């Protein structure tokens, strides 16, 4: 057993932290929240130069050939700093499923572009029913000649408005179970018939409604097998859930650090408020939630990274981290008092992201039900 | 609107508190937890002399003609004193059933005796399914000549071992719905075929397993109409639940009072522990819970007392008070530290009663479900 990060991982963490502190200050975060695109092409280019987009892409596709565990380290720092933009959707929701199920041709075409920062991707999975279950997929893909014709509405698709490719999860057959008959397509985002609108969300993270109206996709753009796409979605969801947890623990730690610093500095009744027992109890509970979130996240990330069965552990982690991140940012605002409730204060940035992340890839009730099933209930 | 108690009610409270402090010290409470009967006939007699058993019965049946809310005041004081014995089962569970469903003859026969303290009664409602819904009533009553024969098992029947009469809720028909076919009988506790076994419970209250083996009950002992007993039970449960909430509120207030007194007196680190913010906040949370419990209980009791529809209010009260009483006693224990963990201490009396009261007449989840239904869900 070894519960430490490797030296390389620690170095990755330090350089990521330094880079993001310099290149992505909170002023930029706020600016990008309000911008239409939601990311900075300059920053995106610099990240590509650091090799971040290709971190987990094998060398032969111009990547760095590192592991999911390494990616998690990077994501933790991105969550800590709050990095707006399409890194998550491109790498986690785009590169990873292509790596898992893409044909050699698809990999050769797209992965080097991703690694080079030249392609932005996203996955269109959820629909107005807003569930992450196979039964929620109604967007139809019907074969016609050498193509499939896609029709339907996808909702909560991050960065679709700037994406070059959209991996669309469709229904190609009504099977005996909802998991049957799911097929994934790599759709050129410029294809005629795609309409995309950004929806204003709590974290201003550029989630979109994407309407597919008779969108024609060549058969060769099918990702994985016909009708058997659900296991790929499930695998991607496991990876994405843990990637999200990694981001969340970074954010939770940042919210805790800010709050501890404030409690030491803010003076009331002639002493720092951190000397009051009530504040100390809040902070020790926050510390516990953050530390436990990290431990549980690392365990599940490691299992994903090793390719071990991890359905239960992933659900355990996400359910716990959801609550912990919300708790920490809510208490964080409480300790900061009125100042923490202002739109200009950084605590709010984290608070809003905690609530956005809570629902992404399944909220706590959803995860608890997964755990219950895994327990044999 | 008048949210205060009347002068008479305040007087009743004061006399009850004084009386119980003197006549029912905690030493007696602890003794009765170990005692087989679970009550002392002397105290029972004195309570009867004060008119408590007949408090809420009409004068024509030997009662004092006071209201349910008056009774709630008394029950609150009983909860505060942890009064052991068969008051609740005799007066609330059985007295009210007879008053509600009995014919004139039955009322004339039983109510004055209850008011005089000459009778102890028990309600045999729950069975091994341990639920409070009509489908749970499985025990059979079959007509035979001028009698009915009752066979089956009742569980969690308080004071059945000392009861002169047991009111037994039986199934006489398998109707279209579970509510149909329920009939209530007044069974002589000494009838052949009844065997009672005391259950060992945390609160040391005298709950019993009662086995009816072809117990013969004359038809004239039917309470209310054949097959239509569930309406009576439903109404009774509403009253009993409100009454139990009143008892619980009294207990919660006592646990709070004790904890505050201890926080003022116990010195650690050179000062009373009540001067520490953590303890102060515990007390603040406790008093919030106690007050919240009181007001929601009083509202429910008032509605019951005035014969208004009270299903929603009673369920809101029980859902809230069940958890609040538990929280209050848990914090009380935390404030008391090790001393509160001793059997000789009074704190465990309240903790155990809080835990015992939680599932009685439905736990918080059960009542939340009732509230949800009332909301039209």
């Amino acid at each position, binding site marked *: *057993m070894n519960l*430490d990060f490797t030296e390389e991982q620690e170095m990755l963490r330090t350089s990521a932290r330094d880079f993001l502190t310099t290149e992505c200050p909170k002023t930029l975060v706020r600016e990008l929240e309000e911008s239409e695109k939601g990311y900075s092409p300059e920053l995106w280019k610099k990240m590509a130069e650091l090799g971040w987009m290709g971190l987990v892409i094998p060398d032969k596709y111009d990547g760095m050939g590192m592991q999911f565990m390494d990616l998690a380290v990077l994501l933790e720092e991105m969550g800590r700093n709050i990095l707006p933009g399409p890194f998550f959707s491109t790498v986690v929701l785009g590169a990873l499923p292509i790596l898992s199920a893409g044909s050699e041709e698809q990999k050769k075409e797209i992965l080097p572009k991703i690694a080079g920062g030249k392609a932005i991707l996203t996955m269109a999975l959820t629909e107005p029913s807003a569930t992450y279950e196979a039964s929620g997929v109604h967007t139809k893909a019907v074969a016609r000649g050498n193509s499939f014709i896609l029709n339907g509405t996808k909702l909560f698709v991050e960065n679709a408005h700037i994406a070059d490719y959209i991996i669309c999860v469709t229904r190609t057959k009504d099977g005996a179970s909802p998991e049957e008959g799911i097929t994934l397509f790599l759709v050129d985002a410029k294809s005629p018939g795609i309409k995309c609108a950004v929806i204003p969300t709590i974290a201003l993270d550029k989630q979109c409604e994407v309407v597919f109206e008779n969108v024609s996709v060549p058969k060769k753009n099918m990702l994985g097998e016909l009708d058997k796409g659900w296991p790929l979605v499930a695998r991607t969801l496991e990876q994405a859930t843990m990637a999200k947890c990694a981001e969340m623990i970074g954010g939770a730690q940042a919210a805790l650090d800010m709050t501890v610093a404030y409690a030491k500095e803010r003076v009331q009744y002639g002493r720092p408020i951190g000397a009051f027992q009530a504040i100390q109890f809040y902070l*020790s509970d926050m510390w516990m939630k953050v530390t*436990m979130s990290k431990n549980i996240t690392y365990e599940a990330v*490691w299992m994903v990274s090793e390719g071990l069965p991890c359905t239960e552990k992933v659900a355990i982690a996400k359910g716990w981290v959801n609550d912990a991140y919300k708790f920490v940012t809510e208490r964080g605002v409480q300790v900061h008092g009125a100042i923490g409730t202002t739109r200009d204060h950084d605590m709010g940035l984290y608070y809003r992201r905690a609530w956005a992340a809570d629902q992404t890839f399944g909220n706590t009730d959803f995860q608890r039900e997964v755990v219950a099933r895994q327990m044999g209930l | 609107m008048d949210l205060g108690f009347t002068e008479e009610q305040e007087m009743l409270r004061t006399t009850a508190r004084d009386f119980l402090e003197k006549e029912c010290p905690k030493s007696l409470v602890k003794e009765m937890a170990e005692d087989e009967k679970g009550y002392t006939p002397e105290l029972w007699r004195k309570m009867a002399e004060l008119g408590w058993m007949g408090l809420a019965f009409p004068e024509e049946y030997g009662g004092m003609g006071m209201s349910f809310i008056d009774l709630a005041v008394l029950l609150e004081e009983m909860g505060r004193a942890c009064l052991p014995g068969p008051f609740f089962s005799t007066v609330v569970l059985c007295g009210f059933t007879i008053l509600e469903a009995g014919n004139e003859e039955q009322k004339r026969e039983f109510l004055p005796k209850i008011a005089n303290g000459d009778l102890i009664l028990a309600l045999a409602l729950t069975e091994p399914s*341990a639920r409070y819904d009509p489908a749970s009533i499985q025990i059979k009553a079959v007509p035979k000549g001028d009698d009915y024969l009752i066979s089956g098992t009742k569980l969690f029947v308080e004071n059945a071992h000392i009861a002169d009469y047991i009111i037994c809720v039986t199934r006489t028909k398998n109707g279209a719905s579970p509510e149909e076919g329920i009939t209530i009988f007044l069974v002589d506790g000494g009838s052949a075929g009844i065997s009672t076994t005391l259950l060992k*419970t*945390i609160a040391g209250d005298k709950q019993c397993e009662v086995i009816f083996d072809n117990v013969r009950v004359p038809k004239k002992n039917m309470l209310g109409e054949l097959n239509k007993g569930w309406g009576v039970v439903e109404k009774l449960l509403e009253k009993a639940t409100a009454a139990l909430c009143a008892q619980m509120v009294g207990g919660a207030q006592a646990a709070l009072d004790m904890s505050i007194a201890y926080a003022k007196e116990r010195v650690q680190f050179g000062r009373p522990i009540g001067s520490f913010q953590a303890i102060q906040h515990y007390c603040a949370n406790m008093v919030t819970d106690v007050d919240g419990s009181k007001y929601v209980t009083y509202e429910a009791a008032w509605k019951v007392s005035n014969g208004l529809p009270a299903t929603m209010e009673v369920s809101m009260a029980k859902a809230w008070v069940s958890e609040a009483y538990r929280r209050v006693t848990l914090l009380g224990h*935390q404030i008391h530290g090790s001393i509160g963990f001793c059997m000789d201490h009074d704190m465990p009396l309240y903790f155990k009663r809080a835990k015992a009261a939680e599932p009685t007449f439905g736990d918080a989840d059960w009542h939340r479900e009732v509230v949800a239904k009332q909301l039209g869900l």
Partner: protein
Amino acid sequence: MDFRFAEEEERFREEVRAFLKKEVTEEFLMGLEDRGELDFSREFTKKLAEKGWLAMAWPKEYGGGGATMMEQLIFNEEIGYFQAPTGAHRQGINLIGPTIIAHGTEEQKRRHLRGITAGEVVWCQGFSEPNAGSDLASLQCRAVEEGDDYLITGQKVWTTNAHRADWCHLLARTDPEAPKHRGISYFLVDMKSPGITVRPLINMVAAHDFNEVFLDNVRVPKENMVGDKNQGWYVSQVTLAGERSQIGLPSSCKRTLEGLVEYVKETKRNGEPLAHNPIVRRKLAEMAVEIEVNRMIAYRVAWMQHKGLIPMVAAPASKLFGSELLQRLTGIGMEIMGLYGQLELGSKWAPLRGAMARMHMYSLGIAIAMGTNEIMRNILAIRGLGLPRA
């Protein structure tokens, strides 16, 4: 990172598990219950000693097994899971032994360590007093020099197993003039000494675990002082040296949860298994999450110790969380059982032998013993996060 145990560690776990499965049977535990010694068995402790597991992580030179912290963790995890009795050796192995190793004289080591590693001598801890609980340093028990001895007079309270122990390690004031932390010394006291009276304190579960201990001019030879005079407070801090993950709490909770899962699967309410009830499912799943979270922080504590670091914050956090988890889990257990939850041991109707209510009440004590959860939160805030003292 690598969350796998090594193969030989897994083999060791299997060996421990097989042993416990054989020894800690339902009948064995019920036998202890009947004797009112739920967590106390000299025989079982001796068996562990014979296996070489009792002091497995102690240095070999003191009769230990020289095992790693991770091996100790595995052992403690299994002991916790089987809810095996540790009362007869906990004090000796975790507290007094390490203190003597760190601060004791050669003579003290020769005299006391073997009895502990062999599982023959039971120790109790005389720290708390009626007016010194969380504020332990304000203790009043006095030790006065007389010739080659000290005469100790005072009262100790919450002394677990005092009525069963052979020896007591206790703190007494040797300099009443000094600031409160600096006038305390650490003594080893033979419980058979004249002047000691042990009076039982029955806890709310109606069990006799702890006691009041009255000391009336108890004569203790000077050679029984551990460390220097007036240094007892600092000597007592070494008692933090043993394995501190508190893994036993989550692993015992895991066993309890498994019992509850079985219970809800086989218990029907009006024809429907409780396991189908969404509220029951959510509650039990929540507990599975918390147990896993607790296990991971406990692993982290052991890991830090394994590497020679002091888990200054993680260790109190694990105890704090574990005790509150036990409270929640057993509370939820009682809730799910409904009216049956209130039944105590010895009723044929009581599910899981009535253990749930008893464990729930015990959990109140665990949130208080060995540093209340409030003190734990203060430690976390001040030592871990660097917040100023109140």
